[in-house]
């Protein structure tokens, strides 16, 4: 059996991600049960808010960060065909991130950090929670620098060659993450950690929320870019097609990287401490960042059409039926694009400066980000796992049939969960409530939607269990496969890739200046006006 270089590092990251994922799934089922109110004895606010906080932190920070690190090492080793230089560097990052995760998780599970995924000052959590979150981020920086390092080393050894799209996008994501994670890290190190330790008495809640918003939007693209990379670099290849246009794929990735960081203020539309003009500026950026996503949709569908036509599909729609949907990663690609379409429409509502007032902090928002994150992104993490597990372990996937079932269930469960949530939001149901002790007239029309939410949650749990089961059984599979990986071919390969589309020097400088324009004054204003800090509060 051939062994892939970096196998242990890749699998260690992946298994941390998916183990915590399974914990968070069980919490999610508890939450829909609590909210639906079917078991009144289970409606305990302490449990619910602790559970929501843990679910959010695990899904948003732990599952994603570790899965993306594993993905990155796989991408680097295979697309560049080179070994990881100084593997200990990657292991150091992994251990720091894991230590941080365990610190934060112990505080979350013991109810000492029920302050939600967005930290919510002036609610105060245990200092170990903040320190753990910061360590998780710092650990991931080792990975980010490792990715940049590997790409530069490869470019030096292969002058004039085009960096494969899989690695190009991974490095774009690493750079994006270094810029975007700075906001939350500053908030933790200079505000929340010293404040929770009692070293400073008060924090400025406006400043804290502004710093978090800096991280809060681009982090979504940090989660999403690996999904897009599977769509660009793996789905067309597996379907038997080609990447429609390498240059456009690179332009989209660069746009995501540059535009997505300084637009986070659309999370603060309803907050009184930022002026209207800045919110409007951030809205323009928010609408522009929809463009690379629309370009991605075009390129990926074109790649699938090429595959369908090469397989003998004819006519305007005939190609669709010739695409090999029986391959998990191809099926997941289509389901992911469908969820992206639904979720994208909702996102345009949230992004709208004035329309946002109707949906802000309602269950609509929860529906939206579950579609985009748990739907669009995570289904591609599953697909990637099915694709890479055999290559990394050298063992055939235990069951393709279970994998296909699992992906369909995830898709159906996600829609059953999130479409009612959108509707509940329009009816006015707030997000983040553990029960709804409101007058009957307020609750009108909620019950049926809550049933949908509950059924959706259960379907998703079944799907998650099938996923973990399939991966575990794959480790014990006796049928060997070769770990061959080939980079996707392009329909019209560029003879020579322009330097701007083959590296990040210029773009990094551009993000830096755009970030100063977008966040410079909005952060600085808190030091220019007389503000009043707030002392810590328990829940």
């Amino acid at each position, binding site marked *: 059996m051939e062994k892939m270089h970096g196998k242990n590092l890749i699998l260690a990251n992946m298994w941390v991600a998916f183990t915590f994922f399974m914990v968070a799934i069980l919490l999610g089922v508890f939450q829909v049960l609590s909210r639906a109110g079917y078991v009144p004895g289970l409606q305990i606010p302490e449990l619910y808010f602790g559970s929501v906080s843990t679910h959010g932190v695990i899904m948003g920070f732990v599952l994603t960060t570790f899965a993306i690190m594993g993905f990155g090492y796989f991408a680097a080793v295979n697309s560049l065909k080179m070994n990881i230089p100084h593997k200990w560097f990657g292991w150091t990052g992994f251990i720091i991130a894991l230590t941080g995760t365990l610190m934060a998780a112990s505080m979350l599970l013991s109810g000492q950090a029920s302050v939600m995924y967005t930290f919510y000052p*002036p609610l105060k959590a245990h200092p170990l929670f903040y320190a753990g979150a910061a360590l998780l981020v710092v650990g991931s920086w080792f990975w980010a620098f490792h990715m940049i390092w590997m790409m530069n080393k490869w470019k030096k050894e292969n002058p004039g060659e085009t960096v494969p799209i899989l690695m190009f996008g991974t490095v774009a994501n690493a750079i994006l993450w270094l810029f975007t994670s700075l906001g939350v890290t500053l908030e933790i190190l200079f505000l929340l950690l010293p404040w929770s330790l009692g070293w400073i008495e008060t924090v400025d809640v406006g400043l804290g929320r502004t710093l978090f918003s800096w991280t809060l939007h681009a982090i979504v693209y940090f989660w999403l870019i690996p999904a897009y990379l599977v769509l660009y670099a793996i789905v067309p290849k597996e379907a038997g097609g080609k990447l429609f246009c390498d240059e456009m794929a690179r332009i989209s990735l660069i746009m995501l990287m540059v535009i997505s960081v300084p637009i986070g203020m659309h999370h603060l539309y309803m907050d009184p401490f930022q002026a209207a003009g800045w919110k409007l500026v951030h809205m323009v950026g928010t609408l522009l960042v929809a463009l690379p996503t629309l370009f991605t949709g075009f390129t990926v569908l074109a790649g699938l059409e090429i595959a369908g036509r090469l397989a003998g599909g004819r006519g305007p729609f005939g190609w669709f039926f010739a695409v090999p949907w029986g391959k998990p990663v191809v099926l997941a690609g289509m389901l992911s694009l469908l969820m992206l379409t639904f979720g994208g429409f909702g996102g345009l509502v949230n992004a709208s400066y004035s329309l946002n007032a109707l949906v802000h902090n309602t269950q609509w928002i929860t529906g939206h980000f579950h579609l985009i994150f748990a739907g669009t992104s995570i289904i591609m993490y599953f697909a990637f796992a099915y694709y890479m597990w055999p290559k990394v372990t050298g063992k055939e996937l235990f069951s393709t049939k279970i994998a296909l079932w699992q992906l369909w269930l995830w898709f159906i469960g996600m829609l059953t969960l999130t479409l009612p949530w959108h509707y509940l939001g329009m009816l006015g149901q707030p997000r*983040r409530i553990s029960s709804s002790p409101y007058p009957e007239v307020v609750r009108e029309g909620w019950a049926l939607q809550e049933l949908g939410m509950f059924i959706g949650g259960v379907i998703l749990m079944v799907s998650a269990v099938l996923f973990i089961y399939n991966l575990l059984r794959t480790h014990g599979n006796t049928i060997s496969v070769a770990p061959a990986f080939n980079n996707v071919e392009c329909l019209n390969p*560029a003879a020579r890739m322009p330097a701007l589309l083959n590296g990040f020097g210029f773009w990094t400088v551009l993000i830096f200046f755009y970030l100063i324009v977008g966040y410079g004054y909005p952060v600085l204003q808190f030091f220019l006006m007389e503000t009043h800090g707030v002392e810590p509060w328990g829940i």
Partner: protein
Amino acid sequence: MHIDKLEKFWIWLTTITAFAATGVLGFYALHLNIHPPSNVETIDSSRLHLSKEFNENNLGVKKNADGSVTVTLVAARYGFFPSHIKVPANTPVKLRIASPDVLHGFHVPGLNFATMVIPGYVSEVHAKFPKTGEFFLLCNEFCGLGHDHMWSKLTVTNK
């Protein structure tokens, strides 16, 4: 660099759509003057009860000389004070609200009347209610273990 004709068409189409959406929202904002609450006004939350505006005796609904109405509210664990407010329909209403403790927020199902309430800052919302009836302010930001129970009544009466 090679970009296909079809793809060029798609790039133009989506770019024009994005700018058109920006134009529409920009028009609402700049011409019709529709903005989210963005007054950037600080206040010492720990001394809210001693402030001129948000002390207990000054809360509630007040008619102004020009016929408009000012509502002064405090959002605190776990209610909006005063807990029942009555405002006239089709009248400009200015709501000013502050928190003495943690984050709160509210929206009113059936109306586009909403804001966040951030300790250390005053939120100001402008509205005009087109129809009469009973409405409810629901706290929509996690504020502690009693969060679910934080709601209050808003009655819109005939002018």
